């Protein structure tokens, strides 16, 4: 079959479900496979077939050399036609090996494929009990009986198609969010990009140079920021927050609150307003390293270029309103709430830098310790056009430090602050910055105190080496504290050089803390609005760490970039591309096809306790106003976890119900109740 034919074929088999009513008398066909000697060499297949014949509802029981061969499959089909078999049991290899072959065969005959029960007597029996032929035969009988029992009550499972909304919503406009938006838009999908700040680009725009190549991040990101901002299919909303999320995979409804900029789009970015605004506050974008006004633009290349007024700090002097040559400042703008209908959501909310003041011995942020800064602050100092004019100047006296000590693993790999993980990026950016500083000031001693240097991957060990070559000193030891001489004000870093077993007191004009990357502020509420689960560290948890690291716990919601866990830029971009592709798939196709193998709730039994909802990881169960649970058939992943949670057995997964499993269990457990009176 060519690929085109296959596509056509899947299109044909859609709701093939409503074929036959499940009520009729079960007529079961049983087929035992020899698999050459593979099964028949160990199991007496004839005996098993004889036994099968004795079981209720079995209208045919055969054994055959190769069931998966054309004649074998034909036997199956013929039995349906000739004997009116309406359920089939094939005892052969595993479900993965040929289960599907037989299921498809009966489907071709008009039976729902879920009416086939595969019994594995090869991998689970003949191959593992080759030396115990009698026992293997006995076991095969029991397995076949179990299969027949199970087959008796199998119900049809409908395959349904749900049309999807061809639009996507991306949360967070850092590098990951931008990449995902752009890729989605290029696939022809309209994108709503939601950024909570007034500018896009995220942390990457704050960096000075990016490892391993030490390129200018502004230069690398600006084609993307411009590309996204000008893409006809991308609608960008800044100063925006997610308020509410409804619906499920394929069809979400997202309510977004957009705070006003108080400056209209005709703003020419002339900067007059800002120049005359009397209010000065520390710039968040500049990591507090410089001052901005109450009406401002975060940085000259910021996108959108329109200025923004910070209502919280504004004293409403109206200077800006009056001075603006194009009358762009407008205080009457109001918060808007918009609702977007989208098929997929990509969350790319990034990270925050860990606040090291929690680690008290380092005294970050305390009086007298102004020269203890974080790497992000150092990046801001080094960046072009910074307040220090790209020089490294210590905050206390604006002098070039003669000794810089960097401390690694601040807030990472630390059980006491609860971040057990290794950020994985800080070794790389510390080495990057150490090398840059050392190259700028060859007379300055630059030291990195580390526990382990973690620089895996192409180009990174090379980066490490290059820093060693220019003379960065590496000391293996985690500093216990930074002490300040109360008289001279000098700082010292206390550390053991574990390799020579010497406690050291390092003079430090400036200390740079390589702080961890932690989940961004507000991720808790965002996570609960999206109904996605989070890892214990607070990042959004992927569905499967290896096989599906871009899907969240909930279908239709994808994760990209540092929100899933600390990542560098390349990894964020790579993940964003993948998120875009899998988020786009159902939207491009136009529908989601899903087997309705879902639980149903017996409302007579249900006591409205809501326990089923609590265990459902994909958040497929909603509780109605009257307290009854409702299964969202699109979101449900057919795991059955809700079943044992229910105290009354009201919620039962189709074809895996307690009763159906019991039927299967009885023969293989030895058959028949043991002590009825007691249990």
């Amino acid at each position, binding site marked *: 079959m060519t690929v085109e034919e296959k596509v056509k074929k899947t299109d044909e088999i859609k709701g093939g479900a409503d074929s036959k009513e499940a009520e009729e008398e079960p007529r079961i066909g049983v087929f035992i496979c020899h698999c050459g000697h593979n099964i028949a060499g160990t199991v007496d297949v004839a005996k098993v077939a004889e036994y099968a014949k004795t079981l209720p509802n079995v209208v045919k029981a055969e054994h055959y050399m190769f069931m998966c061969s054309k004649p074998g499959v034909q036997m199956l089909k013929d039995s349906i036609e000739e004997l009116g078999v309406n359920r089939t049991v094939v005892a052969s290899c595993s479900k993965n090996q040929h289960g599907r072959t037989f299921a498809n065969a009966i489907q071709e005959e008009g039976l729902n494929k879920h009416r086939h029960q595969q019994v594995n007597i090869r991998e689970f029996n003949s191959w593992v009990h080759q030396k115990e032929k009698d026992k293997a035969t006995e076991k095969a009988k029991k397995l076949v009986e179990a299969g027949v029992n199970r087959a008796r009550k199998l119900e049809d499972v409908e395959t349904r198609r749900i049309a999807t909304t061809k639009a996507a919503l991306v949360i967070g406009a850092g590098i990951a969010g931008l990449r995902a938006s752009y890729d989605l838009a290029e696939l022809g999908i309209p994108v709503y990009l939601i950024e909570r700040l007034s500018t896009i680009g995220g942390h990457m725009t704050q960096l000075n140079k990016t490892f391993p190549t030490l390129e200018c991040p502004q230069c690398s990101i600006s084609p993307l920021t411009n590309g996204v901002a000008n893409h006809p299919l991308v609608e960008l909303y800044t100063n925006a927050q997610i308020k509410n999320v409804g619906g499920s995979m394929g069809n979400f409804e997202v309510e977004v609150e957009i705070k006003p900029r108080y400056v209209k789009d005709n703003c020419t970015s002339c900067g007059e307003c800002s120049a005359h605004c009397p209010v000065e506050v520390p710039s968040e974008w500049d990591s507090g390293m410089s001052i901005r006004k109450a009406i401002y633009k975060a940085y000259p290349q910021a996108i959108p270029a329109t200025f923004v007024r910070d209502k919280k700090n504004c004293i409403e002097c109206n200077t800006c309103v009056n001075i603006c040559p194009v009358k762009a400042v407008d205080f009457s703008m109001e918060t808007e709430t918009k609702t977007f209908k989208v098929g997929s959501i990509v969350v790319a909310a990034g990270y925050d830098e860990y606040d090291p003041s929690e680690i*008290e*011995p380092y*005294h970050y942020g*305390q009086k007298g310790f102004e020269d203890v800064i974080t790497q992000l602050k150092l990046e801001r100092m080094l960046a072009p056009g910074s307040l220090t004019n790209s020089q490294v100047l210590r905050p206390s006296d604006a002098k070039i430090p003669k000794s810089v000590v960097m401390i690694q693993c601040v807030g990472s790999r630390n059980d006491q602050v609860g971040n057990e993980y290794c950020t994985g990026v800080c070794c790389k950016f510390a080495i990057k910055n150490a090398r840059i500083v050392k190259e700028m000031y060859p007379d300055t001693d630059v030291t990195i105190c580390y526990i382990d240097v973690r620089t895996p991957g192409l180009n990174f060990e090379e980066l490490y080496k290059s820093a060693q070559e220019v003379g960065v000193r590496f000391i293996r030891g985690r500093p216990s*504290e930074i*002490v300040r*001489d*109360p*008289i001279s004000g000098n700082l010292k870093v206390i550390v053991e050089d574990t390799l020579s077993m010497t406690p050291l007191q390092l003079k430090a004009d400036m200390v740079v803390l390589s702080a961890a990357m932690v989940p961004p502020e507000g991720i808790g509420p965002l996570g609960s609005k999206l109904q996605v689960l989070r890892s214990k560290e607070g990042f959004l948890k992927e569905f499967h760490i290896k096989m599906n690291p871009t899907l969240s716990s909930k279908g239709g919601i994808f994760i990209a970039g540092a929100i899933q866990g600390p990542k560098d830029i390349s990894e964020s971009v790579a993940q964003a591309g993948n998120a875009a592709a899998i988020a786009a798939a159902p939207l491009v196709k136009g529908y989601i096809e899903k087997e309705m193998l879902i639980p149903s709730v017996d409302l007579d039994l249900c006591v409205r306790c809501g326990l089923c909802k609590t265990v459902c990881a994909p958040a497929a169960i909603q509780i109605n106003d009257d307290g009854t649970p409702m299964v969202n058939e699109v979101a449900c992943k057919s795991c059955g976890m809700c079943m044992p949670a229910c105290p009354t057995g009201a919620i039962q997964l189709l074809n895996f119900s307690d009763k159906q499993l019991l039927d299967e269990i009885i023969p293989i457990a030895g058959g028949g109740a043991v002590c009825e009176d007691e249990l």
Partner: protein
Amino acid sequence: MVKEHTFAFFLGCIMPNRYPAIEKATKFVMEKLGYEILEMERATCCPAPGVFRSFNKFDWMVAGARNLCIAEQLDADILTVCNGCFGTLQEINKHLKENEEHRIQVNEKLKLLGDYEFKGIIDVRHVAEVLGYEVGPWGIEDHIVRKLNLKAAIHYGCHFLKPTRIREIESSEGPTIIEDFVEALGIESVRFKEQLTCCGAGGGVKAYSGDASMTIFGEKMKNIDEVKPDIILDICPFCHLQFETGQDYLNKNKECNYDYPVFHLSQVLAYCMGMDVDFIGLQYQMMGRDFIFGGEDVKKEEAI
């Protein structure tokens, strides 16, 4: 519920047997502040955490529990004046309250020592914590009759705050409880280098290796001497002993010339609350005998 405003007064070893003036001062202060002080008859050494726990942790717990039982029989929380006693008793008390297995084992052995059973009904307090947080700088003003004008090098010692997860008083990296309190007495705390390090006496080191102990202490004194305080202020008789004998040792063996008077928090507070200077006990101490408290009398009207 244990009795309010009542403490079982745990003496320990060094205070009653070396610096009885601290005992006198503490009693004076606490009674003036309206607390009833009960004697813990037949108490023993806490036993000291550094030494006895090193030899046999289980017996250390049993002996500590015995002292706790004496207070339980008095139905009152324990008041300690020493970081070591506090460390031992607070830790054992908390541990046995939480760990049932050990509680059973300890109670088993306690039977051998007399009519004792650990029940876990009291708490263990340190006088500095009671003063700092319960009386508070806000509450002491009314009781002060003399206000000082002094610079003090404050030494917290180790076991008052650490392990912070067990003591649960305050962070050990930048504590201010004593600073805040003595400010009300007119005492200014002078910061010195590595202020929060150990005096070198604990952990059995003073007994095990006098040399090592004195080396650690010598550095401490050097840092204190840099800021030239008027007095050294501690909250633990064992640190007190180290500061007293240590200065003397350094003077005799290391060509130093230190003469800083050393006071326990209770002593300076007793002075400010009007105790006779002779009872402060400076005349019995080795260092700073020429020291004069000075300060001004606070007139009653002013105080109100």
